[in-house]
């Protein structure tokens, strides 16, 4: 009997001193395990005289119950302590940021994407044409015959007498209209080439050509479309101004100015004090072009525009030099990430 009491005292006092779940588990095995001390005690029952055995057995079982509940209590106590300790000790400096963000799209792609998305929603299809282009599509089909003075506006890179690097994305106008009858709503983004190189001119740059041909297309529709683009690119207060100009493949032709996004039209160094920034050329498709592509110019009218993507990006993001677009310094590229 004294062994039972002794064990109880030993076990409970050890249990009392137990401070970790691991040592608790060890202790549990030591006392309550299959080969533990309590089991050993129970086995020693055979050494007792038979009349003492029932009492002894009952006492041992009583002790087992007692110890088990003590262990359970201690376990939940330790778990609680452990939880509190973790809550107290597990700490992270959440202020630290040290990760590589997603890569960035090139600003040319960003502007192309913005404009494409806006116009796709208006029913425009996005097409691509060849960069090495025939003189026919780049010039002649657009009402620019050989020796036309308008060819001087664009210093052309030639590959042969009749093959060149396209100077504009406009050839896609003729390529599409030859194949397709109205309604046509198309844009063609892509690289164009001109023999010119300084801070605002690059021998390679990107244009987006726009073309709409259908019945009832007017100059007002051109203005409305460009106002829609401008307000989405530069903010809702952006105004669009037309100035007379000349392109052989549109008539009337206009230069399109937007209110300066830098000063809001008050006049600043970016807009040279005028409050306006020239962004693109546009006009109503010249009936000569429609007819040469086999489209009835009496029935159909259309508008076309061609905008410089880098020019838009330079204004939108405040990029001072076009050469930065092609140098691709990582510190430049990363600024356009999200």
């Amino acid at each position, binding site marked *: 009997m004294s062994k039972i009491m002794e064990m109880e005292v030993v076990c409970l006092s050890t249990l009392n001193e137990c401070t970790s779940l691991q040592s608790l588990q060890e202790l549990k095995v030591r006392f309550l395990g299959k080969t533990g001390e309590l089991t050993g005690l129970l086995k020693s029952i055979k050494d007792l005289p038979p009349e003492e055995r029932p009492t002894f057995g009952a006492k041992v079982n009583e002790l087992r119950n007692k110890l088990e509940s003590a262990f359970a209590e201690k376990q939940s106590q330790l778990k609680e302590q452990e939880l509190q300790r973790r809550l107290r000790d597990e700490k992270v400096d959440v202020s630290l940021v040290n990760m*590589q*963000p*997603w*890569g*960035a*799209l*090139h600003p040319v*792609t960003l502007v192309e994407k913005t404009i*494409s998305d806006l*116009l*796709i929603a*208006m*029913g*425009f*299809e*996005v*097409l*691509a044409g060849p*960069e*090495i282009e025939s003189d026919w599509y780049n010039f002649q089909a657009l009402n620019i015959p050989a*020796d036309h*003075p308008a060819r001087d*506006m664009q210093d052309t*890179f*030639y*590959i*042969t007498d009749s093959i060149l690097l396209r100077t504009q994305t406009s050839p896609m106008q003729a390529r599409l209209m030859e194949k397709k009858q109205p309604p046509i*709503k198309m844009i063609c983004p892509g*690289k164009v080439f001109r*023999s010119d190189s300084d801070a605002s001119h690059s*021998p*390679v740059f990107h244009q987006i050509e726009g073309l*709409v041909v*259908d*019945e*009832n*297309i007017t*100059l*007002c*529709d051109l*203005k*409305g*479309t*460009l106002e829609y683009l401008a307000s989405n690119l530069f903010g809702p207060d952006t105004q669009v101004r*037309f*100035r*007379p*100009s*000349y392109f052989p493949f549109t*008539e*009337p032709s*206009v230069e399109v100015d937007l209110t300066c996004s830098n000063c809001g039209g008050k006049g600043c160094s970016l807009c040279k004090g005028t409050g306006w920034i020239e962004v693109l050329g546009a006009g109503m498709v*010249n*009936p000569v072009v429609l007819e040469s592509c086999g489209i009835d110019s009496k029935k159909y009218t259309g508008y076309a525009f061609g905008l410089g993507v880098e020019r838009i990006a330079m204004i939108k993001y405040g990029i001072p030099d076009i050469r930065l677009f*092609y140098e*691709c*310094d*990582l*510190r430049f*590229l990363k600024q356009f990430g999200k």
Partner: protein
Amino acid sequence: MKLPLSWIREYVDVTEDIQTLCKKMVDIGLEIEEVVYLGEKVNNVVVCQIVDIAQHPNAERLLCCKVDIGGEIIPIVTNDHRVQVGNKVPVALHGATTANGLNIKKGKMRGEESLGMFCGPEELGITADYYPGADVDGVLILADDAVVGTDIRKVVGIDDYVLDVCVTSNRQDCNSVLGLAREVAVALGKECKQPDVTYTECEAKTADLVTAVVQDYDVCPSYFMQGVVDVKIEKSPIWMTSRLAKVGLHGINNLVDITNYVLYEIGQPMHAFDQADISDKTIIVRRAKDGEKIIPLDGKEYTLTTEDLVIADKSRAVGLAGIMGGANSGIKDETTTVVFESATFARGNIRRTSRRLGLRSDSSARFEKGIECATNILGLNRALHLVEQLGAGKVTQGAYCLGKMPENKTIVFDESRIEKLLGITIAEDRIISILQSLNIQTFIENGVVTCIVPPYRDDISRDCDIIEELIRVYGYDNITGTLMEKSRITSGGKTEKHNYCDKVRTILTGLRYNECIFYPFGGKALFEKASVNPIDESKYIRVLNPIGEELSLMARELAPNMFQCVGLNLSRKNNNLRLFEIGKAYLADSLPLTTLPAEEQRVSICATEVTFEQFRDDVLQTIYAFTNSGVSLVRGESNCLHPGICANVVIDGEVCGQFGKLHPQIANNFGIEVDCYYAELCIDKLLAHKRGAIKFSPISKFPSVTRDFAFVCDEDVAVQGILDEFLCLPLVESATLFDVYRGEQLGKDKKSIAISVVFTDATKTLQDKEIEKQSGKALRSIQEKYGAVLR
């Protein structure tokens, strides 16, 4: 086109301030590139009269003057001993600025007070073209009629603006003061005066001086000629030379100045021949003979072809038509008889000759833009008027008028076209008044507009041209935006290739790659740097007229530009590069090109400071944008990649791209000192293998079984081949490598590979027998093909 305001005022009564004028000009389509006020730097300089001169008491070189500046006498010290009492001279007062950048302050010179400084041409920024005697080095002595106290700018002709007007290439008629004056008049709603073209003909007859013959009307559609006798070559008057100076020309002599004056004022290039130099008194306009030589006024000899047009007498060419007169027939001081030529030469012809010879002149520039025959007549008559006005000679009777004569053009169209094109209506009386102001006679009857267009407007040929005239004067601000409400609905969208390129962009940016764009051309030097083998330059499409040799060849690969960019970034300490470009390779079937070449869409991917495995997985992710079935990686060869670390991406037997580690030699060429991996994939080829429509396959309800296998094989064996032997079995869901071991007990050049294979069957629980049957097949095949033995 430089346009002095004073010259425009000869034709239009401009009273508006310069800003208003410019704005109104811009509004109707005349872009103003620059406005220069000629007297901008000259301030507080006035006319004074010298009333007293005394020797400076302390300096022999200096004179002490007293000058009247209009009601006040002030002291001025000067070192110019030419001045005399009574002279009127310009004086810069205290606080004045001068054209050569001086800031004048009052002060004492050697103890004598001086309240300013006398000015000469340099301080005023003028030449003798502006004011007689303004070629001195010293104080400018003014004419006696100069009024004391007047702002000097008004006296020497620099109280004037010069506008630089950008004229669009269709408006050749605006490349002249008169042409711009017509536009300014419209912009301001004022009248434009006609140039004075009156003169009296003398007894002598043009026909006695010269016979003019045009042989090639196709390149010289109109030719006019008239003579001047009793020519006196002298200086032109200041009013003429100052105008020429303001547009950038120098006064030479009266005859030459008249031709230049007419060129600028009327827009007609003129030429004056010394009649004495024309042999047999015959002028022939003809094509040059092959190899014919000419020395124009620039003194250089040019060799001509039959493409070129010359003005010749019976024996030789005396001028390069429309470009430059011959040195053998120009105006000289002793010239007494002159014939003026006023003609139209085909612009294409002038352009080609001028380009080929590298010889350009004001005259050729005008002809290249196109000259109307109406201008020939106006220019000739204006020149003859000026001859008479300047007393430079007597105009002879009669003119040669060869070829085309000016005609009005009639354009008729439905009034409804105006609204159809513009989207707005304009009142009929407004339509008429606008077009009339442009000298386009207009009638509207029963909705039909009839326009009679003056001959100088060769840009107007159909209804839309008239409508443009209408709206640019009516004002584009009257156009209000609409959104194609009356057009049909169309469905928008991108091409499949665009969509896949976008997908590649999304994947690569998600993998932290940054997008680049490079010039799609480069030079031999760059392409050689990017290749361990010599490059075959003849395969590249070449630009005939590149900016430089380094931008002369169209790229056949994206790699060179990417390596250059990596080198540049590393040199700037930008590390851990992850870059890609979606670009094109320009591949010609044969050169020189006769048809348009293939433009292959590609993506280049480049990363530094990564492992092969990391990079390979990024490349595979990109490929999986298109397909993930049938893709295998096979050892490949490349001009720029490490021979041992280079993979071909093969899809269903077609090589769609390559990737690997940069060849150490190439890395060295570009100064790349860190590990660098590069991939170039062909998007067009990947697209051809794109995955088909997605179809659901049932998920097995039965548990899968995993078996591990270990093989010993030669070091060279490509493990993927072994995996593929399992993967082709119908019940195999996956086969993956999980360990590679090399050790002495295996033997030299041997490796042990451990593979985990998962078997599944959608229809039943797998039996060991079935698995053994299946894997047995694979094991036999692996042993046969790869010599790999189960461990």
